[in-house]
């Protein structure tokens, strides 16, 4: 790869494209060529992080200056000033308020925010994800080379075990242990699946990894396959993530061209193929057995367990299913060792965690920080405080695997065990931060509505229980609830947990359980006093 003086990135998400990003790109290109800078400057389009309104933006490295919104007619001036003359153009710079987490991080490198710890997002937003060479130059495929030439599958599993890495898909299951289960089965044919279905409300971390650093997933899956004895892998990507699918397919093709996928990889006896499989809009397909059914071409419904995928997975063969973020940690762990990984985070939950911050805070977006940081720190430092300084009331950690975190727990370290001990869970890594104007009953209703809609319908308690729970919440929010309803809610919550077939149903009762545990007075006010203390619920007096 040639070395360049400057790297220019243009955002290419749908909003940017609509606002003329392609023309911005073209104009920049023409201008760079006109000025004879083509050899010194690389220009590419990159995906986007999340919502903000400085689109389209242009980032110029190494200074990490962010311009936005940039219009096509600004291109000429920008190239002349910044790239030719070396002068920043303040009037085109994006204002800090509009920055997303990703861009916030870019600024952090310039010293305006405390540094995050980036392992998973190491290259996201820095390299051109469509260029394998940029990945390789940034330590890419080093770990795979090392694994294939120097390590036995057992060594690899030991290294992962020693890192203490735990699954980032929601349950926090020790990754090395899972790899050990799959490698311990005698089957000849095994599969590795990367779970990129990511449909928990408010979560989009996996998307950024897939879009921004697709080769890291290919590398991690190859390592995993080598360790467990698989020779075929699937990446299951949420249907709406078109860019991620495209990038992955491109990356896979490049990897084949470079001999990194296919037969006799790096001259070893190891063969590995990867297929990309698109989801079709069902949240339940993130559950690993439903995901497997879906790949097999069936209705995405969770299987009865046991047997577990580790012994009876895809087409009945032992299968390793790992989340995107879990896998994205793997290359770094094998490059630097499990011990290095343990230097981040807490003893029971080593490493970092990617969070997507959203809600009533000043800065929303994506951060990667060590495990064990507290919610108070996240809000104060990364989210730059609550919007309009309204005080923090409650957070939700994302979808079915997450839970409602009352303000009283904002000093609890965010790691698997501390959260579990406090009776809540980390979930998928979304941090929906709500202020005092939020009604917890309304929040629970929104979540219950999600579960009701996404229940696959296979089992009775979830199919019908969610509907009933939603109806009761709806009645309470209309001011027509009764105290008996609260007992019924508790009963449904318990039955969902006890009787459901899969994780969706089993955790679908937790919002109700959590609001009854932490905010009972507020819920009772809806019933006894017929008022919504936050003034959110309609309280129309109607009953379902």
């Amino acid at each position: 790869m040639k070395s360049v003086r400057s790297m220019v990135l243009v955002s290419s998400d749908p909003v940017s494209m609509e606002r003329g990003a392609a023309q911005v790109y073209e104009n920049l290109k023409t201008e760079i060529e006109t000025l004879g800078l083509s050899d010194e400057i690389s220009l590419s389009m990159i995906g986007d992080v999340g919502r903000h309104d400085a689109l389209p933006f242009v980032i110029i490295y190494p200074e990490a200056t962010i311009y936005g919104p940039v219009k096509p007619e600004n291109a000429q001036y920008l190239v002349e000033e910044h790239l030719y003359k070396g002068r920043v153009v303040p009037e085109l710079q994006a204002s800090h308020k509009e920055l997303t987490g990703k861009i916030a991080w870019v600024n952090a490198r310039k010293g305006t925010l405390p540094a995050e710890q980036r392992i998973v997002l190491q290259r996201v937003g820095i390299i051109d994800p469509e260029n394998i060479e940029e990945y390789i130059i940034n330590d890419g495929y080093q770990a795979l080379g090392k694994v294939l030439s120097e390590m036995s599958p057992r060594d690899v599993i030991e290294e992962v075990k020693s890192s203490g890495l735990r699954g980032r898909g929601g349950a926090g299951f020790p990754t090395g242990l899972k790899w050990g289960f799959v490698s311990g089965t005698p089957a000849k044919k095994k599969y590795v699946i990367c779970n990129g279905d990511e449909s928990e409300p408010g979560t989009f971390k996996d998307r950024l990894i897939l879009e921004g650093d697709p080769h890291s997933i290919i590398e991690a899956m190859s390592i995993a396959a080598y360790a467990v004895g698989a020779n075929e892998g699937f990446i299951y990507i949420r249907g709406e993530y078109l860019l991620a699918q495209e990038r992955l397919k491109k990356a896979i093709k490049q990897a084949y061209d470079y001999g990194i996928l296919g037969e006799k990889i790096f001259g070893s006896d190891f063969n590995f193929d990867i297929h990309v499989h698109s989801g079709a809009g069902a949240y339940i397909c993130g559950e690993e057995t439903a995901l497997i059914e879906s790949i097999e071409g069936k209705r995405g419904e969770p299987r009865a367990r046991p047997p577990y995928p580790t012994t009876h997975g895809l087409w009945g063969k032992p299968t390793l299913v790992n989340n995107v973020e879990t896998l994205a940690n793997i290359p770094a762990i094998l490059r630097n060792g499990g011990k290095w990984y343990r230097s981040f985070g807490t003893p029971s939950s080593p490493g970092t965690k990617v969070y997507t911050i959203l809600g009533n805070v000043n800065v929303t977006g994506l951060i990667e920080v060590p495990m064990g940081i507290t919610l108070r720190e996240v809000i104060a430092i990364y989210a730059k405080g609550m919007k309009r300084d309204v005080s923090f009331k409650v957070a939700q950690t994302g979808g079915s695997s997450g839970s409602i975190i009352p303000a009283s727990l904002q000093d609890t370290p965010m790691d698997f065990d501390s959260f579990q001990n406090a009776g809540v869970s980390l979930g998928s890594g979304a941090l929906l931060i709500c202020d005092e104007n939020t009604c917890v009953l309304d929040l629970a209703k929104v979540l219950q509505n999600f579960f009701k809609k996404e229940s696959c319908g296979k089992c009775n308690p979830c199919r019908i229980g969610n509907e009933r729970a939603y109806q009761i919440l709806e009645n309470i929010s209309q001011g027509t609830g009764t105290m008996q309803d609260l007992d019924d809610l508790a009963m449904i919550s318990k039955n969902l947990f006890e009787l459901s077939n899969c994780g969706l149903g089993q955790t679908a009762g937790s919002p109700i359980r959590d609001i009854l545990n932490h905010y009972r007075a507020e819920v009772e006010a809806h019933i006894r006093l017929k008022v919504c203390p936050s003034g959110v619920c309609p309280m129309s007096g109607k009953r379902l």
Partner: protein
Amino acid sequence: MADMVTLKIDQQIVTVPAGTLIVNAARKAGINIPVFCYHPKMEPVGMCRMCLVEVGYPQRDRVTGELVKNEDGTTKISFAPKLETGCTTPVVEGMEVRTTTEKSNEGRKAILEFILTSHPLDCPICDKGGECALQDLTMLHGPGKSRFIYDDKKLFAKHVPLGEMILLDRERCIQCGLCVRFQHEVVDDPVLHFYQRGRSLEIRTYSEPGFDSIFSGNTTDICPVGALTTVDFHFAARPWEMERDPSICAHCAVGCNLIYNIRREAKSGGKTVIKRAMPRQNEFVNELWLCDKGRLGYHYVAAAERLTQPLLRKDEKLVPVSWEEAYQRVEDKLRAEQVRLVTLAGGRLTNEDLFNFHQLNQSQNGKAVLYSQMAGGDLTAQIGLGKGSNFSDMGKGTAILVVASDLHEEAPLWWLRVKQAAQRGAILIVANARPTRLDKFANHVLRYEYGQEAATINALLDGKGKDEFTQAAKAFSEAENGLVIYGSDGLGLNGSEQLVKACAKLLVERGYYGKPNNGLLAVWDKPNIQGAWDMGFHPDRNLKGTLREADVAMIAAADPAGDNPILAQALEETDFVIVFEMFMTETAKMADVVFPVQAQIEREGTYTSGERRVQRFDIVLPHIEGPKSDYQIAAQLGRLMGLSTEDRSPVLVMNKINEKVKGYQEITYSRLAERAEQWPLISRADSYYAGTGYENEYGVGIQISSSADRGEELSLGTLILVEPQEEVATGIKVVPVTALYDRGQLIQPSQILAKRLTPQVLLMHPVLSKKYQLQDGDQIKVKVAGNEIVSGVKLDADVPQDVALVARSNGFPISSPVFVQIQRLVPEPEA
């Protein structure tokens, strides 16, 4: 024998094979765990959560792996923190299961409460009411009342037809998935699916016509609620009002066991009528299933045009006479000197009828002719399926060769059971001139040209020829057990004879006979063809000549004149024709004497199935005034001729049969009524477990031994083959094949099947149709043996390019391969 494990269920010690699911282990111990979505014939899915129980596993020391003991020396059991589904969890040694703890009772109650809040509870107008799993389990385990009083029951149109046979009520559906899984897993007709998800889940059919499956009725048995019901039984009666009578299906050679539910009703003028047919468990024959022809094809009994009085030809007209007069007339004829008597019997007659007819015939030195186009009943009696054979036992190690048979159409239940044997690992070789529904499950598919059936089997014997032949030949010869199933696809009697000889030779050379799960199996086209062979009737290659030369022809359960104009002509030349019939058939119209006979359901008797299982059936309906059983009439005639033929009861006829007929020594009516232990253990009392099919309280029948089983010397005759003569003829070669829904006498009265009847067409390949400038849907005039018939044309790229196919018993007088001339009919221009 599988490894056995011992466990404790509710304080009972049970020993069952390893891998048994908890629900089934419990059932063995007489403990009924409630289920909705589980069915013992399907893979468990754990959807409904009704079977949740507490499960404890013997605790092991983490370090040493040793079992941890309690102080009293017993093994320590650690119970799983949550309830587990008994339908998906296999038992392990030392397990302890508790099915009636507070926790599991509460779980069940909650599940029922949830279901009931979404259920219409319109039991009073529900066809399932009274035999409904949801009703039964609610009474046993449900909450007395619901805590959820929302007015949001799902509202859908009631009883929507899924095709003409099955109705769907989506409000009642509890989404157990049994119907979908049955259609996909068991019968491979994936025409039902779930649509949408969550509470919007709905059953839909995606086929044209709707619910296109010949096994669809079974879903109404296994549906735990009244969501799927048959049009046939819709609003017809309540289960508790009906009586049950056991019978045997008369539509094919499988001999499915069934129950007819009957009731006396005002609606039918105070008469007793059949309200529906239901499967009766026989794990040796039909397991828990019926095909739709068997289930819906009983309406012919009620058909109005039954004959009730003997008829005698007087002045060229058939007029009603007394039995005495009719008998007298026949006696006179038979006593005339040197009459050449021919007795032509059909495969719908019972063993008792056939035995008496044969006695009578023999006393007059008559010729006993079986009205059938298939050969080989003598060979199946000698080296047929060995005693103790059961498709359910076939799997790895067994090779099954199916030749010249579209089993799915000819014998649906065998198709199902062969398919399942193949899925269990049996080597399946399918040889046919055209693709069939069995190909998909075959290890080897062999194609030949119509006419090359015997040659194909010979090629398998030699192991020479094309590659797939040598591979199939090898696979067939290397198995532990081998059986050959031959049918009549494209064959007439000549071809059938060639074929069965070749099959017999193959089996004998490979040693596949005289033991269970080995031997020869014929896919007869009538329920009792095997019995007819055993009683001494054989088909006649020159039936035309035989009839023509006869002085007296006795024809029972056969309509040669209706089937074939050539035979009608032959009969004109017969001096005296005696017909035994239920209806005024073409043959009866030509008769000199017609005796009205009883239908199968009005009388007792036995059939010998293709698997040579003798099974008895009971009187289901009181017979209508007038007709008698064939065996009675034959016996009366016999007595007039001085024989001691038995006319009092079929039971007594059977006592004679077992003295005289080889293989039938052990058959008596009381032995036929013996039950056998069957798995799964089903019962109407808890129909939530396996559906509303009936347990078998009436006997599973007896499979008779073959000569080879008995160690007798075989007389197979010469199995050397005569090369089939190449027929030189002009025109299109037409071959007969069997269609399940044909236009046979027994099926036509079932209106419900009318739309599914096989079209009356010549089925041909587009290449062939092009040669004659024909198109799909054209009408043609077909000249066959001097007759002209109008037929349709249907194109099918799957059939061979040089022949046309026509369905038997479908209004087309072709029962063996023949060359025909055709001419396209130009439709009259509309005025």
